[in-house]
């Protein structure tokens, strides 16, 4: 029983971390409808950026992640511009080629990381990595607690940003009715580009959390395709509060299966849940 309780607690911590790696996708795919299968590849790329900064200059991984956000913001602006000019603007056949485009980008990133860093696992060093708190039977690694706290703060901040600020509301408006916004004199493409920039910038921090929670390897993005899309679809497209709930459900489910059946089944859980959600309730938990 204690074992199961421990699994649930760790699952909640893990779930908040999953929320942080998924919120960006919740904006880019959920709100903007961009088939962004390269999202997890950008995430892993950010982790390697954090690794490099930590390794060469001994910067704290969280600070390194923060330092990467402006760079990723620009990266996101550029990626959306290319996507818009080549697919959305031309209209026809955008779906098929848009998906293939991001799939190709994800693969290029993966190979570039392998060429630069090799296939071995990489990890960062910081004072809070390696220690743990003990509560009687079970222990909670401090790295998990740090990731949990930062992830929760990040998700809540983004939710507040999207619901309270002018720009955030503009982003949600463009997601709901682009044409109406255009008639009111706003430029929907610029708003969407900015939103995509934000969604990518968040990955700087999320990438730092990824490498804090566990060592990373170049092909890790494949597992996170399942996790991030599972969370975003289960949440109901574009719902940030739903993202948090769905991520916690996924985290707890993974943690329990891991405890009961062992690690060899872990990769399939998020994908199985994703298929289940798509088959049973495609509009998600909080979907319209």
């Amino acid at each position: 029983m204690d074992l199961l309780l421990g699994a649930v607690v760790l699952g909640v911590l893990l779930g908040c971390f999953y929320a942080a790696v998924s919120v960006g996708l919740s904006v880019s795919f959920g709100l903007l409808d961009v088939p962004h299968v390269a999202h997890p590849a950008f995430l892993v790329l950010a982790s390697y950026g954090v690794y490099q900064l930590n390794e060469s200059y001994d910067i704290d991984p969280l600070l390194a992640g923060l330092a990467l956000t402006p760079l990723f913001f620009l990266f996101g602006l550029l990626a959306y511009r290319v996507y818009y000019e080549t697919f959305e603007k031309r209209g026809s056949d955008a779906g098929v080629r848009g998906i293939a485009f991001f799939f190709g980008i994800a693969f290029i990133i993966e190979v570039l990381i392998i060429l630069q860093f090799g296939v071995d696992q990489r990890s960062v060093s910081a004072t809070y990595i390696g220690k743990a708190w003990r509560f009687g039977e079970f222990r909670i690694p401090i790295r998990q607690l740090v990731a949990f706290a930062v992830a929760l703060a990040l998700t809540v901040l983004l939710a507040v940003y999207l619901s309270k600020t002018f720009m955030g509301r503009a982003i949600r408006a463009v997601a709901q009715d682009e044409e109406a916004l255009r008639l009111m004199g706003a430029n929907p493409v610029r708003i969407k580009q900015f939103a995509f920039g934000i969604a990518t910038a968040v990955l700087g921090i999320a990438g730092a959390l990824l490498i804090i929670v566990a060592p990373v390897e170049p092909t890790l993005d494949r597992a996170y395709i399942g996790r991030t899309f599972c969370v975003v679809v289960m949440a109901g497209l574009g719902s940030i509060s739903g993202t948090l709930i769905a991520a916690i459900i996924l985290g707890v489910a993974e943690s329990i299966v891991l405890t009961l059946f062992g690690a060899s089944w872990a990769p399939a859980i998020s994908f199985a849940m994703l298929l289940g959600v798509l088959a049973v309730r495609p509009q998600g938990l909080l979907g319209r």
Partner: protein
Amino acid sequence: MTKHRNSIVFWAGVAVFLVAVLAMTQIVRNEYPFFAGYVILQFIALAVAWSILGGYAGYVNFGTNAFFGVGVYTAVALFKATGAPLVVQIGAAAVVGMTLGFGVGLLTLRMRGIFFSIATIALAIIIETFVMNWRFVGGAAGIQIQRPPVMAPFDSYVKMLFFVQALLAVTAVAIARYIQNSRIGRGLQALRDDELAAECTGVPTLKLKLVACMISGALISAAGAPAAMYLQYADPSSAFNLSYSVSALAMALIGGTAHWIGPVLGAILLGSTQQLLAVTISSEVNVLVLGIMLVLFVVGAPKGIIGLLRPRYRLRAGGKP
């Protein structure tokens, strides 16, 4: 009349090709061309099979590796359990691939494009996880395969596999060609251009997509079945390697999906480039070239190589005359 003549030209070409392949296995002594050629033929089969659903119907399947791996492991399990000959392994793989295609189709083909694509990635990872936990076929560590004695008229197993894979590639091309020219193909193209409009005008869209998914799945699994014999080894992470999905999709899109010849051209061009690069540089650079070509073509030449060669296909892109 021209259609009839086209058919004669096509089947004559097929006959010449197969005779040439067979003659090559009898004359050429060096085994390397067969090792390399096998892989290119396999890519032709995969790219053509992928394009039946992905090209004609516009449903981007990321799960080529799922069907491929299922083909590999159907053959492995069958061979280990009963020692069945290669022909039976391939037939069984095709049946299992077709069944899987039917299941996947039922579950996912009502989904909007991107959801279908993600679901096919999901499928690959779930099946891979099952195989990793399946002791009988070696689990995550993989399994060694002892090749049975080779059959006449071939003097080495690799030459025989080369010929078998040539047959599979030809089968895939013939089926893709038949579908393209038949009512099925026209229906698929109609639903790719506008699924709702096709549905409204009485095209049985779901049925057509299911048929396409089953045929595509059967062909991919069949092409994968001899892989364990080729490598004399099978393990889940190579059999279900995502690079099969990228290759099939990239080769089909780079060649162009409006005509069956597109995926064939793409597979020959990229397959031989890859063989060359793998020998001279490294397999990572291979995949990089594949990815970059895919992105460049998707952005710059939406109708692929055949679109560049034949402006008729390019003009169709924007719906302009």
